[in-house]
C-alpha cells in the first residue's frame, strides 16, 4: 500500500524525522486557510501516487492568499499522468507546505532488498532528480549499505555512509540521524520502501524530507489500524474500490474480456493466454484459495459492473478451491443477477467433475465449457467478438 506524500510526512513527524511545516487540505477553501496559518510563501502540492507531479504542474508556489486559492483550484481536479504512462490520476487533495529556500538536495532511501533479505540504505549527495540515471552513470555517487538484520543500523555506520556519499561535514550528523530514523520507521511501521527525494538542506543548514514516498506492507495492516484506515481513503477506480470492499484482488485493465482465476499465478497466466488468443483482458481477478459460492458471486458482480466487459472467462484449477463450490457460485450469481453475457468455464482439479455436472444441469444457456485453458481462451475471444479492437 502506497502512502500519499502528506500521509508519509505525518508518519515521519510521529517518529521525529524532520519535515517542513505543512497541512493537509482536502479542498481549495481549506488550502487557503492552511496557507494563511503557515505563512507565505507556501508550496501547493498535488497529492497523487505517482512521480513527475512537478513537471505536470501539480506543484506551485503561492506568495499570498489569492495565489494560494488560484493554485489550489487549478490543481484540484487536475489529471496527472506518470512519467511511465501510469494513470491518469485525478488530484483529489492537497498538501500545503512552508516554502523552503533550498541550499542542497540529497537522495536517501531505505528499501527491502528481496535478494539479500535485508534492509538496504541508499544515500547520494545528489538528489531531487533522476537517481536511476545517477546510479547508472556514476555508481559510486550512490552509496549502498545493507542493514544488519540483528543489530540494525549503528550510529558510526550511518556516519560512515554519509561520509562515503560525500555529504558535507556540516550536515553529515543530521543526515546520519535521518538514516537511522529511516531504518527505525521501516521496522516500526512495516514500510518496505521509504524514499526521500529530495532530502533537502534548507535555510539555516537544517536537513528536512522535502518529499516522501512510502510503501507499507499490506500484510502488516492488522497491527497498524491507523494505516488501514488510510487505505480506505485512497479512492481510485470504481471496480477496484468495489473489489477492495469485498476483499478481492482486482486490477482493472483496458480490454473487454472479464477474467476470473484462482491464484495470482494462474490468473496472470490466463491473461497472457487470452492475449495470445488475440483477446484483450478487462481485468485481473484472483479469487484466492478456497473461494466459496459467496465470494464467486461478489467477484462476478465486480467483473460485470465494468460496462466494457463483453464476455467472461472462468479459469479454475482447484486445490483448496472446490469445483462444485465454484459451480454453485456461478449458477447462483447468474440466476440472481440475470447476467446474460456469454461466459466460458474451464474447471479442473478438486471436485471439477461435480462442478461441471452442476453447471450443465443448471440449464443456463449463456454458459460454455471448455476442457483446456487454451481452448477456453480461444472460445471467450470468439464470443467477445474477436480482438476487441
Amino acid at each position: 500500500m502506497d502512502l500519499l506524500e502528506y500521509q508519509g510526512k505525518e508518519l515521519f513527524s510521529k517518529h521525529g524525522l524532520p519535515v517542513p511545516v505543512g497541512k493537509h487540505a482536502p479542498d481549495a477553501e481549506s488550502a487557503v486557510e492552511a496557507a494563511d496559518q503557515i505563512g507565505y510563501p507556501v508550496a501547493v502540492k498535488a497529492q497523487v501516487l505517482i512521480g513527475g507531479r512537478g513537471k505536470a504542474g501539480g506543484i506551485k508556489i503561492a506568495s499570498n492568499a489569492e495565489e494560494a486559492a488560484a493554485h489550489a483550484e487549478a490543481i484540484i481536479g487536475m489529471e496527472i499522468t506518470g512519467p511511465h504512462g501510469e494513470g491518469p490520476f485525478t488530484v483529489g487533495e492537497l498538501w500545503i507546505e512552508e516554502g523552503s529556500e533550498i541550499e542542497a538536495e540529497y537522495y536517501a532511501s531505505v528499501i527491502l532488498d528481496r535478494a539479500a533479505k535485508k534492509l538496504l540504505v541508499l544515500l547520494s549527495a545528489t538528489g531531487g532528480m533522476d537517481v536511476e540515471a545517477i546510479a547508472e552513470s556514476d555508481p559510486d555517487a550512490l552509496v549502498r549499505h545493507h542493514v544488519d538484520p540483528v543489530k540494525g543500523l549503528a550510529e558510526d555506520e550511518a556516519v560512515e555512509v554519509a561520509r562515503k556519499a560525500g555529504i558535507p561535514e556540516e550536515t553529515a550528523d543530521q543526515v546520519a540521524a535521518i538514516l537511522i530514523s529511516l531504518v527505525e520507521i521501516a521496522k516500526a511501521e512495516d514500510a518496505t520502501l521509504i524514499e526521500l527525494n529530495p532530502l533537502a538542506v534548507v535555510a539555516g543548514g537544517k536537513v528536512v524530507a522535502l518529499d516522501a514516498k512510502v510503501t507499507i506492507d499490506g500484510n502488516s495492516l492488522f497491527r497498524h489500524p491507523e494505516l488501514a484506515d488510510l487505505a480506505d481513503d485512497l479512492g481510485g477506480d470504481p471496480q477496484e474500490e468495489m473489489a477492495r470492499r469485498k476483499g478481492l484482488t482486482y486490477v482493472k485493465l483496458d480490454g473487454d474480456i472479464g477474467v476470473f482465476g484462482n491464484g495470482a499465478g494462474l490468473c496472470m497466466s490466463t491473461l497472457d493466454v487470452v492475449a495470445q488468443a488475440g483477446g484483450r483482458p478487462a481485468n485481473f481477478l484472483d479469487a484466492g484459495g478456497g473461494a466459496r459460492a459467496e465470494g464467486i458471486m461478489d467477484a462476478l458482480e465486480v467483473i460485470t459492473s465494468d460496462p466494457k466487459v463483453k464476455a467472461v472467462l472462468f479459469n479454475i484449477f482447484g486445490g483448496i478451491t472446490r469445483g462444485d463450490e465454484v459451480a454453485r457460485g456461478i449458477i447462483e450469481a447468474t440466476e440472481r443477477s440475470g447476467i446474460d453475457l456469454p461466459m466460458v468455464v474451464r474447471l479442473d482439479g478438486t471436485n471439477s467433475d461435480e462442478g461441471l455436472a452442476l453447471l450443465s444441469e443448471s440449464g443456463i444457456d449463456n454458459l460454455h465449457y471448455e476442457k483446456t485453458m487454451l481452448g477456453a481462451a480461444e472460445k471467450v475471444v470468439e464470443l467477445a467478438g474477436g480482438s476487441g479492437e
Partner: protein
Amino acid sequence: MSIIVDQDTRLVVAGLTGREGSFHGLRNREQGTEVVAGVTPGKGGQDVEGIPVFDTVAEAVSETGANTSMILVPPPFAAGAMDEAIDAGIGTVIAITEGVPVMDMLDTYWKARDAGVRLIGPNCPGVLSPGKANVGIIPAEFFEAGPIGVVSKSGTLTYQIGNELGQAGAGNSSIVGIGGDPVVGSDFVDVLALFEEDPETEMIVMVGEIGGDAEERAAEYIAENLSKPVVAYIAGFTAPPGKQMGHAGAIISGSSGTAQAKKDALEAKGIRVGKSPTETATIAVEVLGG
C-alpha cells in the same frame, strides 16, 4: 529420492486443531504422509482423529520424533510458529500461511539460516513428492512419480503445469512451491541446487512470475551450476506496468521485474521459456525425450 519431503518425513502441524490445519493435516495423512503430531498452545493432550496434540513444538519433537513442521496458523502468529519450530530443532519448516508481514520474515529468514533449517514459504502450496509424502495443499491426486522436478512461485499455476505434464505422460520427482512473497525461506536457486543433487530428478521445470529478480538470479545460477536441463515459464506478460513508486527498487535489482525481462534473462543463458503452461509442458517432455 526426491527432495525436502519423502517417506522419512515425520510431520508436526502447527495449527492442527484449526479449520485449515485439521483439513489439510488429515488430507496429507491420507496421501501417505507420516503426520505424527499437532501443536496448539493450550490444547495439549487432545487429539485430532488419533494425531496427538501438544502445547509446544519442543514436546512434539521429544514425544514423536517430528522432523518437519507445517505452519498453518493465522498470519499474526505465523512467524512466531516458524521461530518456535526452528528453536525446537525441526530440520524442515514449510509455511503455508498467506499474508505474513515481510518484516517478520526478515527476522525469521536469518534465524532459519543461522540454525541451518530449511524453510519453505510462507504463502506457498507446500512440497509434494508423489507417492511418498505431501506437506501442504497441493492436490496430490493430479500428480504421479516421475523424473521432472518442478519449482514454482505460484500454487494453482503449478497444478496447471503439473497436470499438463501428467497428461503428456511425465511425472514428478518433487513439486516445490517456494511462495510468491518478497521474502521466502528458499529461493529458486536453493531448490535448483537440491534438484541437481537428486538422482531421481532428470530435468527441472521452473515457474516464475513478475516481480523481484529471483528468476534473473536463477538464470545466472543455472548457467554456472546446473548440469540438468531446465525449462521455464513466466506468468504476467499482460500485467499492467505498476505505478512507479520511487526508484530504489529498480536501482538495487537492476531489473524491471517484468515478465519480458525475466524471459530475456533466461533465454540469454540458453534456457527455453514456454509461452503458455501447455507449451511449457510440451517443451519439457521434448527435452526429456531428447
